[in-house]
């Protein structure tokens, strides 16, 4: 009794109460019903008693002593009960008796379903007496009778009123009854055997309900319970020891040296820390020595440890094996051949013991059989299954299987399921039912490589990776926290707390709370219930077991503990667990692998190069010259190609393109990008607008158009190769070729404070005031917008503040340059303007090229300015020499010009007549020329020559030019001529007769040879026109000087003519 738990006592008292109250009621019923029911009641009673009797012996049959003790206890209890009963009520005795029975019931630990038991007790409380008295030995009744009675009593209870008078009788009866019962219990052992046979099973089955009702916490051990000692034993023999103890217990039971322990157990699982011990429950330590003495493999004489009461439940703690879900990853343990191999769970049997898994077979298809069957040197056969080199993992191949074992294979090619050598194969995987205990379920940590093998096995070739399952199997892997991590507690009492880790010690993380009421407090939490916390926008690096390891990116969304980030490198979204992330301080992530880094150009084989577009942990992805990506190992790369800064290629238009130029594909997708590599005829471009291949794509150089060249290199489609460099004439005279710097102007730039309009670019058309200038640029304060913008001076048109007319603010200064320099100027101009320097002049008509050039070379312009007379023109006209060209030109004009060549030539140089002609001004030109009276006129040619020049700057310029030249005389503007002429002057200036010849056509040509011709009409059309174009093609101006160049264009009559003329001259 002493060992009874408190709750049981509580129960008892409960039932006592029950008994006390209704007791009298039943008594009356008893009276009325007595006669009818006596027999059956007695039976019931008897049944009860005997039940006890039979149970008692059944339990204690084999161990007498404890039983005896029990009985003594019981007796003691009974007496107590009696006292109680007496004190309380007259009928107490009856109850006492009843109680006693109940006690016995419980003593036997044979706890019945509560309700029923109580009922029974009530009943028996009143019927016992009679039953016992009248026919104690009546046959045992089965439960049915009892139930009948139960019904009866139920009815009876309703109406009955207690009559205490009868209780005295009952009491006496009961005393007698009890005495007899005691006697009966004395010889219970004798009956036990029989009774147990009859009732044993039923008795033992009555326990369940009761047990489930009792919560575990009420079962916690107390000092009244036996103690538990840990006893050393031989490791690995724990089970055997437990069974040996069992045997000893059974052998000695019933004898007079029963094993004095109540239980012994072991907890030596394969991964247990409790190996090498068994735990024995006994009252005294000495009992254990007795019990274990002489048993093998257990050492009670070595140090025996008493387990503290509070630790006892832990000894028996059971942790549920995590259940397996289909799709989960496991590792095989059992067939040695497959030990450690990854397998995927397909199904789990209902009882949760077996799992159907699939894995990649390691088959040799009998190749090794022969070697196995031949006896080895020592005459013994090698045992199959011996650890040898195990075959590599390979999907099942029907063909190979048929080679050697055609008989052992059968299956269905349709479903691709086979049975081979007793194993099942589906889709190449081996499928097998394996005990879960033979699978490694925890810490599987499948690698990406392993998993992909399974994924690629799917029929349609699609990747059917079940990331969720993968995640689940990875989830158990260790999470590491570091000081500084922002952590959220999601489990336990501190749930919801957010803080920053201060220190990490083992499994305990100390947090400083950063949010909520606890802010500032430091709390310690176990690492089990916490996770790292991030916010969208955080920059993080993937760490740990994820296959995205080492990616760095920005958090874009968070769902539970899954965090989606956009990687810096590839701009792809990847989802990983927050545990695998850490705040990243660096950007871009791992961009290199060994010596290779992202966007490097590498040689894959002698004919293939590629650009690295992705760098992984062990491999990288390379976009080769054919636009294909491939994954390569560093070892597959022949070498890295250094970046060649000087690499140059020609784009579709023949313009040179270099690294860092921005080009656009012609046709196709018209992708645009910056050149990062030029290799032979391929260019690798990088674009920020696409994420594919890290924005890198490859195309042929001949398939791109230049959009912007780095550093503003001129990439005019009209400009050809720089012929000046090939010009022997120029080369001959290197001095002249030297780039001449524009003459310095002293003092503040005149441009400052001028009103300007902007000719091109984003600010085109806006008007502003120049605030500051450099050599090439001006800072302009726009009227319409705040702030200063920097604009190339060439894009500015200076205007009169009031009238808005374009003006030439440099007109004064131009002069100096004048004559001699003139030519040089021209040359020089080549130098700086890069061909069409003309534009320089652009601003103002008058200045004309010379001007424009003003800084540089003014000369021609001198007169261009129109200051004086045409007469001069010729005068200085080195240009005059030009004459020759004229002739040619003239021809063109043909008859039109009366003036005859004579004059023309005069100013000719400048006039470049041809130009004029083109416009039909031709006639005029001469007129002008002739009509020297009109300064303008005379100039015209000059104009033509000069003014236009600027025109060169741009197609528009033409239009302008005229205006510029003489706002008043649009016509004079000879515009077209100008345009044409423009170069001319330059050409003129060029000392070489030949040179100037060239020019004439040149400028013109470039634009529209055809047009010209047309313009000139039938007249002379061909000659000049033609002449013009040709050079034009060659690149205009430059070409001009070179007679040779001309020669190149023999077709041109003009050209030839020119030459001739020249000679004539």
């Amino acid at each position, binding site marked *: 009794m002493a060992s009874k*738990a408190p709750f049981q006592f509580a129960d008892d008292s409960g039932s006592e109460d029950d008994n006390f109250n209704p007791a009298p009621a039943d008594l009356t019923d008893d009276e009325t019903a007595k006669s009818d029911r006596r027999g059956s009641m007695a039976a019931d009673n008897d049944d009860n008693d005997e039940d006890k009797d039979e149970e008692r012996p059944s339990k204690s049959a*084999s161990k007498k002593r404890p039983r005896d003790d029990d009985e003594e206890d019981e007796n003691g209890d009974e007496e107590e009960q009696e006292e109680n009963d007496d004190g309380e009520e007259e009928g107490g005795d009856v109850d006492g008796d009843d109680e006693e029975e109940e006690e016995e019931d419980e003593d036997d630990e044979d706890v019945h379903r509560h309700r029923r038991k109580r009922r029974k007790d009530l009943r028996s409380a009143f019927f016992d007496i009679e039953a016992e008295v009248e026919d104690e030995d009546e046959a045992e009744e089965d439960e049915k009778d009892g139930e009948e009675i139960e019904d009866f009593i139920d009815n009876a209870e309703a109406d009955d009123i207690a009559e205490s008078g009868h209780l005295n009788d009952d009491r006496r009866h009961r005393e007698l009854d009890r005495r007899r019962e005691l006697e009966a219990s004395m010889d219970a052992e004798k009956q036990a055997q029989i009774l147990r046979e009859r009732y044993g099973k039923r008795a033992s089955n009555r326990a369940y309900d009761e047990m489930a009702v009792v919560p575990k916490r009420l079962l916690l051990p107390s000092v009244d319970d036996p103690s538990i000692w840990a006893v050393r034993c031989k490791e690995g023999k724990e089970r055997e020891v437990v069974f040996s103890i069992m045997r000893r217990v059974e052998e000695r039971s019933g004898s007079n040296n029963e094993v004095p322990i*109540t239980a012994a*157990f072991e*907890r030596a699982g394969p991964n247990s820390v409790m190996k090498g011990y068994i735990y024995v429950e006994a009252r005294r330590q000495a009992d254990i020595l007795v019990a274990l003495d002489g048993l093998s493999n257990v050492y009670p004489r070595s140090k025996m440890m008493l387990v503290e009461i509070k630790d006892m439940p832990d000894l028996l703690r059971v942790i549920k094996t995590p259940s397996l879900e289909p799709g989960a990853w496991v590792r095989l343990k059992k067939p040695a051949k497959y030990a450690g191999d990854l397998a995927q769970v397909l199904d789990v049997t209902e009882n*949760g013991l077996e799992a159907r898994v699939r894995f990649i077979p390691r088959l040799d298809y009998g190749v090794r059989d022969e070697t196995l069957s031949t006896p080895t040197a020592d005459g013994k056969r090698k045992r199959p299954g011996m650890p040898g080199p195990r075959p590599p993992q390979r999907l099942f191949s029907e063909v190979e299987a048929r080679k050697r074992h055609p008989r052992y294979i059968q299956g269905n090619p349709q479903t691709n399921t086979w049975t081979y050598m007793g194993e099942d194969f589906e889709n190449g995987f081996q499928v097998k039912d394996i005990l*879960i205990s033979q699978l490694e379920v925890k810490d599987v940590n499948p690698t990406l490589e392993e998993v992909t093998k399974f994924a690629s096995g799917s029929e349609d070739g699609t990747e059917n990776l079940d990331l969720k399952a993968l995640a689940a199997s990875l989830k158990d892997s260790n999470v590491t926290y570091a000081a500084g991590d922002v952590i959220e507690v999601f489990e336990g009492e501190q749930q919801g707390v957010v803080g920053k880790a201060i220190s990490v010690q083992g499994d305990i993380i100390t947090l400083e709370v950063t949010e909520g009421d606890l802010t500032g407090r430091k709390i310690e939490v176990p690492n089990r219930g916490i996770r790292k916390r991030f916010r969208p926008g955080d920059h993080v690096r993937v760490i740990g077991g994820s296959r995205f390891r080492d990616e760095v990116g920005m958090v874009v969304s968070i769902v539970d503990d899954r965090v989606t980030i956009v990687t810096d490198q590839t701009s792809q979204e990847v989802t990983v667990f927050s545990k695998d992330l850490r705040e990243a301080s660096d950007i871009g992530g791992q961009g290199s692998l060994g010596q290779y880094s992202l966007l490097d150009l590498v040689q894959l084989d002698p004919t293939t190069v590629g650009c690295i577009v992705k760098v992984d942990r062990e491999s990288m992805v390379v976009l080769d010259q054919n636009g294909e990506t491939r994954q390569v190992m560093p070892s597959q790369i022949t070498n890295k190609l250094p970046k060649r800064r000087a690499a140059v290629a020609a784009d579709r238009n023949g313009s040179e393109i270099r690294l860092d130029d921005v080009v656009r594909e012609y046709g196709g997708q018209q992708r645009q990008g910056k050149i990062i590599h030029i290799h032979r005829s391929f260019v690798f471009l990088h674009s920020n607008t696409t994420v594919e291949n890290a924005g890198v794509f490859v195309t042929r150089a001949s398939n791109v158009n230049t959009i912007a060249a780095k550093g503003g290199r001129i990439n005019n489609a009209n400009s050809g190769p720089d012929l000046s460099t090939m010009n022997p004439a120029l080369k001959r005279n290197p001095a002249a070729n030297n780039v001449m710097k524009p003459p310095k102007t002293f003092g503040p730039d005149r441009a400052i404070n001028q009103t300007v309009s902007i000719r091109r670019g984003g600010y085109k058309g806006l008007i502003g005031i120049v605030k500051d200038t450099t050599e090439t640029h001006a800072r302009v304060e726009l009227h319409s917008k705040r702030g200063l913008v920097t604009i190339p001076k060439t894009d500015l048109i200076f205007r009169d503040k009031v009238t808005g007319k374009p003006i030439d603010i440099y007109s004064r200064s131009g002069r100096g340059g004048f004559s001699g320099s003139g030519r040089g100027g021209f040359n020089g101009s080549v130098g700086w303007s890069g061909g069409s320097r003309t534009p320089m002049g652009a601003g103002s008509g008058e200045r004309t090229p010379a001007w424009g050039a003003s800084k540089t070379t003014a000369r021609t312009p001198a007169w261009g300015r129109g200051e004086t007379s045409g007469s001069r023109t010729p005068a200085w006209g080195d240009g005059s020499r030009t004459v020759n060209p004229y002739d040619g030109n003239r021809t063109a004009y043909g008859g039109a010009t009366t003036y005859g060549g004579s004059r023309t030539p005069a100013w000719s140089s400048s006039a470049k007549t041809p130009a004029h002609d083109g416009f039909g001004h031709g006639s005029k030109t001469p007129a002008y020329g002739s009509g020297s009276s009109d300064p303008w006129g005379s100039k015209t040619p000059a104009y033509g020559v000069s003014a236009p020049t600027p025109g060169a700057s741009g197609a528009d310029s033409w239009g302008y030019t005229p205006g510029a030249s003489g706002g008043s005389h649009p016509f004079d503007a000879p515009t077209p001529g100008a345009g044409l002429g423009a170069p001319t002057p330059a050409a003129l200036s060029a000392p070489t007769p030949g040179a100037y010849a060239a020019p004439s056509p040149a400028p013109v040509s470039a634009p529209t040879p055809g047009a010209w011709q047309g313009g000139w009409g039938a007249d002379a059309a061909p000659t000049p026109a033609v002449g013009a174009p040709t050079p034009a093609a060659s690149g205009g101006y430059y070409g001009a000087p070179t007679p040779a160049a001309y020669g190149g264009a023999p077709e041109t009559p003009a050209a030839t003519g020119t030459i001739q003329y020249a000679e004539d001259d």
Partner: protein
Amino acid sequence: MSENFVAPGQQRYLRACMVCSIVMTFSRFRDEGCPNCEEFLHLQGSPDQIDSCTSPVFEGLITLADPSKSWVAKWQRLDGYVRGVYATKVSGQLPDDVRTTLEEYRVTYIPRDGSATELD
């Protein structure tokens, strides 16, 4: 009478009852049924039933010498069972129909695979 003793060589045939966790050999289950649960499990003579209601996967053997007095028995809810060898943990789950049967017998099933302890 060492009926509960199982020689080491026979231990591979051991199975544990999923209801009461008693550990016996398969053949003994077949010949005698489960001493505690036979009333509703009917293991005797039916290997299929034994297969579904007992498990070869168990750990932590307990020798129960005196189920009525042992705290271990009480804690494991083995009090009331017969003396014998029990397991602390029995993996596996009872088939649903057997569970239903248990309910009919008003027997509260205590899972022995550790899932019950998590509830406490």
